[in-house]
């Protein structure tokens, strides 16, 4: 991994159009400002991983058993 040292207010440019800027920092936190094209989604890593993992869990779901909850949901609505 490339590691660069930056001071408060300094930036890093990635490619032509992504800029990361150190906006604020204290002993435990760094606040980073991000300028990137709209087509690039920017997410906190742990949240992205949570979504990835949930998608993987959802994709291996058992199709048939969805009928049980579909029935229950319809009953719930009528009842």
């Amino acid at each position, binding site marked *: 991994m490339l590691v660069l040292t930056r001071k408060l207010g300094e930036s890093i440019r990635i490619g032509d159009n992504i800029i990361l800027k150190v906006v604020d920092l204290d002993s435990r936190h760094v606040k980073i400002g991000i300028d990137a094209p709209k087509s690039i989604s920017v997410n906190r890593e742990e949240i992205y991983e949570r979504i990835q993992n949930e*998608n993987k869990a959802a994709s291996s*779901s058992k*199709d048939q058993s969805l009928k049980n909850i*579909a029935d229950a*949901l319809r009953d719930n609505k009528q009842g």
Partner: protein
Amino acid sequence: MADFFKDLIYSNDDVITFANGIPGFEKNKKFVLVQIPDFVPFEWLVCIDGSRLRFAIINPMLFCPSYAPKIIKEQLEDLSIEKPEDILLYAIVTIADNPLSSTANLIGPVVINKTKRIGKQIIIEDDRYSTRETILRKK
């Protein structure tokens, strides 16, 4: 187990393109929406690239009527949405071992522009919701 989706009939107009796939499945880009009567109100987002990938999905308003995700305008920019009627909003369902405890992912809603047939899963930063919201709620 029978594969409900093996012999799907669809036209090119039915195909929804997820330009970046979805997180965890970045290479799967072409899907169709499938409704099967036995599974209503659930629907299926079925990948048509031969991978057998599919997701059970549900309109989150059906079980969480107050659902109001904080979506940033920029997150929808590449969907070229022109009017609210273009939008389909779904939550991906994880079927639990006990199906009645199944959950839906309310921080990763799937947004589809049904007019332009393009979609993406967006990630919202909203503490009120989680990836596993119980679908069947007690009255």
